[in-house]
């Protein structure tokens, strides 16, 4: 149905939903049907939007999230009332904490039943109130179009995030005139005033006088599309760039000014540089406790400039000297002309000295002793994919090894659950990413624990016939928790050893090709074969069981109080 035909005509609420999605340029939705969504599903075939049938609504939420992260567009997920909607909640919270624009559409019982504890009635707007940017219960067909229009606008605006629209079944069935009007003028959705010249000047002054500056690049770099502006700014001012986990890919890893990841599992020299800095330029990041360590001892000598789109983040965790509230790319483009060309030779040399020490401790320099180390798998995966894949990671040790050993050169090439740290995220999120960028090579990197949380989505992959490669970093443990038990609970491994099915046979049951790898020399050939296969492939990497991610800043400790890997060999030998 084209636009001219449908506008101004009387349509059922269900059709209005699809008309709205078409107008928001939605090409795929991830969902699962149920009684209170039936009217919407019933007319689905009339519209050119693909629906992916998931195996659990959490999967739908993560797929929509992965889709949004990979594409920069708004993801869409459907679930029915009651259990369907409650199954979404983990995924909604995940999108909220990582500021991912997703519109969730849930079915609700008929409007006259609201509040009666009807079959499969739950207070979905109540449950999701603290984990959405906004949500709304829609009880009338004529309110559907304005609610959806508003939902997309809110999801995208400023700091993006999830929005939920809960639509009563009778509103889907009844007819209303379909209108596509502008979103009401909410003051909270107006563009913010630009940053003041005075503030820009103050920031530029600090930058001009700094001798030991570090840029802290966060997720905002990627969200605002500020990579080019950041590279230009860093080069102009000669400032090294450390990234948060979610910022990886926002600044090319191979750039000489790239330091790599900061924080709990950041390299020691990166955290040390932050602690020694006299100026921190925080770009689109929020000083999460995982990157600052103990706030009392955080970067004690540094002045701080915070560029951030969300004014409520300014001063939340760390007091700053200059706050520039706005879109990072816009602010950087305004700031760049005010700062002069600069080089920090001595400062960079000092940071580099720390790098040499790190090399001596790096597991990469461990000889092949017949064991398969997870870090080696990630490094070899990077090599075999030439660093060009979209890697979607789960949560745990493998996530940190990926961040350390898979160098990301481009934005949106790493998709991971940062803020919520949601196990089970990777597999469904990768499906979403593949739909967003079908031409891209997508790798799931997941632990044996997290994989089992959402492995049901293997069937979704097969039903959709999509080619995603899955690397299970199988250590037989809930590895990251085991590591905490090793370091902080005297190795009492309570409930972290974990029995898993034979993943190769499991894949086989889904009709998916699978391999098991137990030796390092097989990693690259098996990865290469998977890349060539053109279909989904699962690889069960049987890695050393009791390995720890180094370095590690214990929770609550100062950023430079790191537990480090013992020096492997003579430093001279590896330098």
């Amino acid at each position, binding site marked *: 149905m084209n636009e001219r035909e449908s506008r101004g005509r009387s349509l059922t609420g269900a059709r209005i939903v699809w008309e709205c999605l078409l107008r928001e340029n939605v090409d795929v939705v991830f969902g699962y049907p149920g009684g209170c969504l039936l009217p919407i599903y019933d007319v689905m075939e009339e519209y050119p939007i693909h629906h992916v049938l998931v195996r659990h609504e959490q999967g739908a939420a993560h797929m929509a999230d992965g889709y949004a992260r990979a594409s920069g567009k708004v993801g869409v997920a459907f679930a029915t009332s009651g259990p369907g909607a409650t199954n979404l909640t983990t995924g909604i919270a995940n999108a909220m904490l990582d500021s991912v624009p997703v519109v969730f559409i849930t079915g609700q019982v008929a409007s006259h039943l609201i509040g009666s504890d009807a079959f499969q009635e739950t207070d979905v707007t109540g449950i999701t*109130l603290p984990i959405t940017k906004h949500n709304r219960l829609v009880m009338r067909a004529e309110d559907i179009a304005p609610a959806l229009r508003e939902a997309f606008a809110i999801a995208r605006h400023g700091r993006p995030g999830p929005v939920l629209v809960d639509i009563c079944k009778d509103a889907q069935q009844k007819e209303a005139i379909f209108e596509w009007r502008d979103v009401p003028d909410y*003051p*909270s959705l107006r563009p913010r005033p630009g940053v003041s010249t005075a503030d820009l000047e103050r920031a530029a002054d600090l930058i001009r006088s700094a001798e030991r500056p570090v840029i802290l690049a966060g997720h905002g770099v990627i969200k605002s599309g500020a990579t080019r502006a950041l590279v230009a700014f860093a080069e102009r001012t000669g400032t090294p760039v450390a990234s948060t986990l979610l910022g990886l890919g926002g600044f090319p890893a191979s750039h000489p000014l790239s330091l790599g990841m900061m924080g709990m599992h950041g390299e020691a020299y990166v955290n040390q540089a932050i602690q020694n800095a006299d100026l921190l330029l925080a770009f689109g990041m929020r000083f999460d406790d995982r990157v600052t360590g103990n706030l009392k001892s955080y970067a004690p000598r540094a002045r701080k400039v915070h560029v951030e789109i969300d004014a409520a983040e300014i*001063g939340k965790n760390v007091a700053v000297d200059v706050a520039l509230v706005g879109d990072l790319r816009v602010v950087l483009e305004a700031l760049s002309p005010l700062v002069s060309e600069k080089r920090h030779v001595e400062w960079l040399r000092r940071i580099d000295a720390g790098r040499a020490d790190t090399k001596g401790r790096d597991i990469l320099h461990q000889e092949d002793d017949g064991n398969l180390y997870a870090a080696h798998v990630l490094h070899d995966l990077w090599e075999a994919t030439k660093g060009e894949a979209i890697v979607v990671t789960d949560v745990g040790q493998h996530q940190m090894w990926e961040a350390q050993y898979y160098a990301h050169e481009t934005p949106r090439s790493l998709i991971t659950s940062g803020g919520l740290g949601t196990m089970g995220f990777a597999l469904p999120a990768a499906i979403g990413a593949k739909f967003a960028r079908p031409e891209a090579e997508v790798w799931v990197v997941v632990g044996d624990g997290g994989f089992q949380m959402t492995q049901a989505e293997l069937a979704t992959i097969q039903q959709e016939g999509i080619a995603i490669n899955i690397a299970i970093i199988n250590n037989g443990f809930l590895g990251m928790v085991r590591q905490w038990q090793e370091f902080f609970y005297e190795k009492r491994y309570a409930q972290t050893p974990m029995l898993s099915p034979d993943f190769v046979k499991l894949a086989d049951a889904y009709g998916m090709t699978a391999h098991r790898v137990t030796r390092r020399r097989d990693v690259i050939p098996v990865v290469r074969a998977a890349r060539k296969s053109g279909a989904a492939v699962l690889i069960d990497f049987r890695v050393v069981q009791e390995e720890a991610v180094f370095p590690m800043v214990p929770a609550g400790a100062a950023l430079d109080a790191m537990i480090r890997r013992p020096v492997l060999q003579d430093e001279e030998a590896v330098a």
Partner: protein
Amino acid sequence: MRHTLVARVFDEPGVLNRVASLFRRRAFNIESLTVGQSEAKDYSRMTVVVDTARVPARLVEESLRKLVPVAEVRDVTDLPTVDRDLALIRVRCVPADRAEVAQLADIFRGRIVDVAPESVIVEVTGDGAKVDGLVDLLRPRGILEMVRTGKVAMLRGVTPAA
């Protein structure tokens, strides 16, 4: 320290819930929150008094501003305002003491609005300190029940508030 924020919010279902949820979730400490009609049909008006010992008032303000139905927020703490709090106080009072209680109330521009054999209800309106003053004076007689609305505030002068 206490800060007073005045907000204009769209009058839609759940808006009070959103504000309350925000305060709970962020562990902002509310001293009082009032909500009621405003001059415009589609808007309600809130006055929130927050204890800012733990979180700066600016953060509370910016967090409120992020809520979609919140149209405007203004911190009026350091601005000249008319502040009002209304209290109804049921105080123990035998008939012989009524005149004295009425006199006390009168000093605070309050009055007795209901009489029972053993008690009276005193109504008083004023800024918080004034209401506190009367409450303190009545306490020794035995306060049986009390309700206070919490603060509402409006800027003095010609500037339309918030």
